[in-house]
């Protein structure tokens, strides 16, 4: 793999950048793979990378019906944090967080992971209680998270309205300082490039239209463009389309696909140097390195695969933002878009075996999948390599919905992320 560096840039500038290598090959698929991963988003590509890197399984194909990282990977608001409430989730997201730290160097691709802190503002006593509970739990889980009072918060985030005359005055906030955000495209591309370098076949414009299943065991997948591709194990990591793939395999998931919208302002000079989210007034915002205010909207209440949501959601979201940051009233919204999020009833993902032998699903990340990308890929790779879940992934089996051992993060997750 061609090494990237500032010196490299200089060197290539002398030859007018005519000699850069391809970031990944464009292979035609083999007939048979050890592992086929359906879905070339961040999670799928990370899975492929860790399969090759940590388990030495390189006869792997990633099948992507469109282009790599073209789904939620490039539509999310790039927030990374690990301050989840329940031990199971905390372990999962902290595992991911530790992979984020140093990811740029590991992939030799700058994913611009920026640990600028993520704040959850509290506007009611109930908010304060749940955040204090969160902070206390995280402390014991070994995850950094702390409370700051309104006065301190005002000092740390001058543009945030911490005054008493707000409709729901901010009483305080919890902040995870190791949290922050990253460059979403770079994460997908960085994993793709690294996986490709380890021999993984990344097959774009390759749509899976059926699954080859005989006596309860999967042997391969049928694709629109290349016919049947055989595999010993198949991992499905298709987020919003998980329900569709599950139907191909003949089962249902406790998952619904909903539109989730986001929007950005025009680029403005530095305004907000951290990430602020409010579960109570329902909005969250950060500012990109380009200067856009990146704002996450809420989820629509109905199933939607159209990558479009309702305008009302945009209105409510911006109301919340202007309530929290009054000085954004004259700032202008540039663009909005939508993704399809697959959400579980308990707002926790599924990393699991399925009723079909050798077929595994990684889905249900809901509104919070981006932060989970490295951990998700790392654990799912383990599952695909061993044929059984990694201990951290075990609680996230589909079985939990039968036994009732849900991992209900609604309380802590509140609105998106």
């Amino acid at each position: 793999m061609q090494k990237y560096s500032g010196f490299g840039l200089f060197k290539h500038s002398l030859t007018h950048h005519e000699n850069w290598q391809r970031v990944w090959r464009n292979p035609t698929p083999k007939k048979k793979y050890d592992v086929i991963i359906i879905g070339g988003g961040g999670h799928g590509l990370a899975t492929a990378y860790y399969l090759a890197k940590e388990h030495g399984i390189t006869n792997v194909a990633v099948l992507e019906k469109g282009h790599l990282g073209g789904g939620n990977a490039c539509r999310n608001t790039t927030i990374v944090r690990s301050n989840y409430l329940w031990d199971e989730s905390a372990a999962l997201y902290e595992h991911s967080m530790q992979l984020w730290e140093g990811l740029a160097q590991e992939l030799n691709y700058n994913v611009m992971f920026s640990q600028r802190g993520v704040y959850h503002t509290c506007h009611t006593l109930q908010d304060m209680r749940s955040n204090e509970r969160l902070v206390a739990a995280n402390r014991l889980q070994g995850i950094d998270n702390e409370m700051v009072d309104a006065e301190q918060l005002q000092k740390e985030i001058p543009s945030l309205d911490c005054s008493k005359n707000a409709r729901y005055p901010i009483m305080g906030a919890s902040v995870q300082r190791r949290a922050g955000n990253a460059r979403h495209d770079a994460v997908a591309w960085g994993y793709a490039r690294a996986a490709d370098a380890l021999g993984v076949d990344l097959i774009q414009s390759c749509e899976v239209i059926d699954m080859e299943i005989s006596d309860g065991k999967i042997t391969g997948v049928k694709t629109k463009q290349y016919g049947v591709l055989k595999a010993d194990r198949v991992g499905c990591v298709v987020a919003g389309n998980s329900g569709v793939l599950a139907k191909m395999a003949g089962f249902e998931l406790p998952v619904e696909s909903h539109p989730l919208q986001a929007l950005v302002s025009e680029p403005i000079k530095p305004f907000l140097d951290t990430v602020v989210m409010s579960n109570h007034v329902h909005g969250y915002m950060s500012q990109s390195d380009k200067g856009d205010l990146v704002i996450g909207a809420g989820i629509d209440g109905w199933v939607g695969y159209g990558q479009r949501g309702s305008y009302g959601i945009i209105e409510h979201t911006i109301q919340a933002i202007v309530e929290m940051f009054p000085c954004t009233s004259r700032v202008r919204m540039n663009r909005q878009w939508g993704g399809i999020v697959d959400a579980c009833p308990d707002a926790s993902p599924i990393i699991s075996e399925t009723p079909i032998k050798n077929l595994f699903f990684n889905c249900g990340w809901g509104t919070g999948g981006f932060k989970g990308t490295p951990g998700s890929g790392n654990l799912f790779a383990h599952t695909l390599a061993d044929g059984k879940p990694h201990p951290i992934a075990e609680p996230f089996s589909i079985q939990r919905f039968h036994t009732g051992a849900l991992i209900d993060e609604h309380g802590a997750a509140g609105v998106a992320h």
Partner: protein
Amino acid sequence: MLRINCPFCGIRDEEEFDCGGEAHVTRPENPANLSDDEWSHYLFNKVNTKGILLERWRHTYGCRQWFNMARHTVSHEIIEIYPMGSFPSFNGMNVENVVKEVEA
């Protein structure tokens, strides 16, 4: 934004309604007889159809009545609205399959 034709109040904005999720999921007569798996299937599993999905909606800020809707989850077109306790007819389409899909 969806524009929904309430069977009683006529076409109104989506903001006046709530989506109650998948339709035709009836509460089991005697839950006690169900295994944990069967019960969780009733509680949690979703058809989550990409295509025509049958849903329950409620005109929350109007007449507060529940009704069913057949809606395409990609184009967001509303194909039919029909009363609780009945199945859609949508003109010419093969209802059986859709309903089977729903009950599967």
